[in-house]
């Protein structure tokens, strides 16, 4: 079967569509994950998506819904306990460790397909049912709409919290809202790349984008493009080479893009300095 044959099949089309939506959500939240220094929160949430997925498997044989519930619960916990910024790191560590232990315990009671467990950790979007793909896509659409609405005040509050508060931006409320948006995004990404590799879509594309642009909009656009290329091309490659999981290609591609962006960034910075100097001279 060639790649084109695969693409005629509904399961491949649905998977590609879900991966595309998930990639857009990851690209959108990535720059905020970096600016708000929430890489560990992403990792913690995705580990807890694992616990949720294990519970989902055990109770209803549905890892996808379980992952969404698990990451939403942890977002609520972090939001609820998030009194001091300083404490957040240790708190996420505590919740992550306890939750992951619980997940392993739950899995030891599960006697279904052995691959189900590794699918949670390393992702397998092709193993996801049509209804679950629909859920995945729906969640992604919710995230995209929510991010469109809160984008501007969230950026203000992330970059310049003191002045944003003085200007009447509800910073704390936005922080909690972003946690939930992040939880939905992470649970979605976990289906494509697995809970262990979520950061390859949620942080790597944005980190690459930051190397190449200095404007918030430029970074957002590049971050989405890089996430899309990594996720979709990764999926297509794994259709071509079915023995390798999609997550391998996705994380490999996103890392490759990051390295390329790093190598290109000195040239970018030089060009930028020259154009700034020219502007200053023109003044």
């Amino acid at each position, binding site marked *: 079967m060639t790649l084109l044959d695969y693409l005629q099949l509904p399961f491949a089309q649905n998977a590609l569509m879900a991966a595309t939506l998930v990639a857009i959500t990851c690209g959108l939240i990535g720059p905020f994950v970096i600016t708000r220094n929430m890489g560990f929160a992403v990792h913690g949430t995705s580990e807890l998506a694992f616990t949720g997925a294990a519970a989902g498997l055990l109770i209803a044989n549905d890892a996808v819904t379980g992952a969404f519930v698990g990451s939403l619960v942890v977002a609520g916990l972090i939001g609820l306990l998030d009194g001091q910024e300083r404490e957040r790191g240790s708190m996420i560590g505590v919740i992550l460790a306890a939750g992951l232990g619980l997940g392993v315990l739950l899995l030891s009671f599960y006697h279904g397909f052995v691959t189900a467990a590794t699918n949670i950790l390393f992702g397998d979007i092709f193993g996801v049912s049509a209804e679950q793909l629909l859920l995945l896509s729906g969640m992604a659409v919710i995230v995209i709409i929510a991010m469109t*609405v809160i*984008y501007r005040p969230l950026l203000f509050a992330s970059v310049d919290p*003191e*002045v944003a508060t003085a200007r*009447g*931006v509800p910073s704390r409320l936005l922080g909690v809202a972003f946690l939930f948006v992040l939880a939905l995004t992470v649970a979605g990404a976990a289906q494509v790349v697995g809970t262990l590799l979520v950061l390859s879509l949620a942080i790597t594309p944005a980190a690459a984008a930051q*190397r190449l642009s*200095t*404007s918030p909009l430029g970074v957002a656009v590049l971050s989405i493009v890089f996430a899309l290329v990594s996720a979709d091309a990764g999926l297509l490659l794994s259709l071509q080479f079915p023995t390798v999981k999609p997550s391998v290609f996705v994380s490999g591609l996103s890392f490759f893009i990051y390295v390329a962006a790093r190598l290109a960034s000195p040239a970018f910075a030089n060009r930028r300095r020259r154009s700034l100097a020219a502007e200053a001279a023109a003044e």
Partner: protein
Amino acid sequence: MSVTIEPAEERRLTGEDVVRLADASVRFGSRVLWRDLTLSVPHGEFIAVLGPNGAGKTTLLKVLLGLQPLSGGSVLVEGKPPHGGSSHVGYVPQQRAFDRDLPVRGRDLVEFGLDGHRFGLPLLTGQTRRRVDEAIRAVDATAFANAPVGTLSGGEKQRLRIAQALLGDPSVLLCDEPLVSLDIAQQLAVMRLIDERRRTAGTTVVFVTHDINPVLPYVDRVLYLAGGNWAVGRPDDVITTERLSALYGMQVDVARIGDRVIVVSDGGGPTCHHGTDTGSCEERR
């Protein structure tokens, strides 16, 4: 032909006060920051707020921003109780460091002043861009407005902060130590911008500072907060050995060297280094 007059303009013409505090108090538990503060600030006045750390200077600004409720008394800004996000109020904070790779340019920071608090996508219309450009030009920041904020000097950032605060066309500018860790030339540039705005647009300035000297040439009155008490008046009347000793409840000496004012406490060592750039301002007991 009739001329429409905006409410704010009308108040300015009739000389109504921009800020009015009556018997205002702020208490945290049993600790009283200040009590029975009564103060009226008219349009175009420059008032400096002085006092040791913990005297409640920043809290006063928070009250005027509508972020801190009073424990007693009342506060009005432009005739109304203040609320968060009021366009009457501009806010200039202390300068802070940004990460060098933060993807936010100077002009993005300025643009926050216009629409940062609004929900929805940041659609940059021609009008928005023009207003942002204009505000950047007004503070002479065009040369570095497209550089990432993490690469700018303190003085450059503060000029952009002023552009940001003025974009909303506020009738009162609240400044919280905007001169901290700026060199003297940068301090002067920032003060000139603020003073120019006050003169041309009649904007009231409430300026919290630990160091009176850079602002002394511009201030009309000072509000001195110390030990739960307060004093207000012209600098020469308030910053005196007698008034400050009464405020602090201990011997405090005021010395003048040339144009500079230095306040020294009896407990050995300066109470508050007016005139130095240490940024420390300790209350000694």
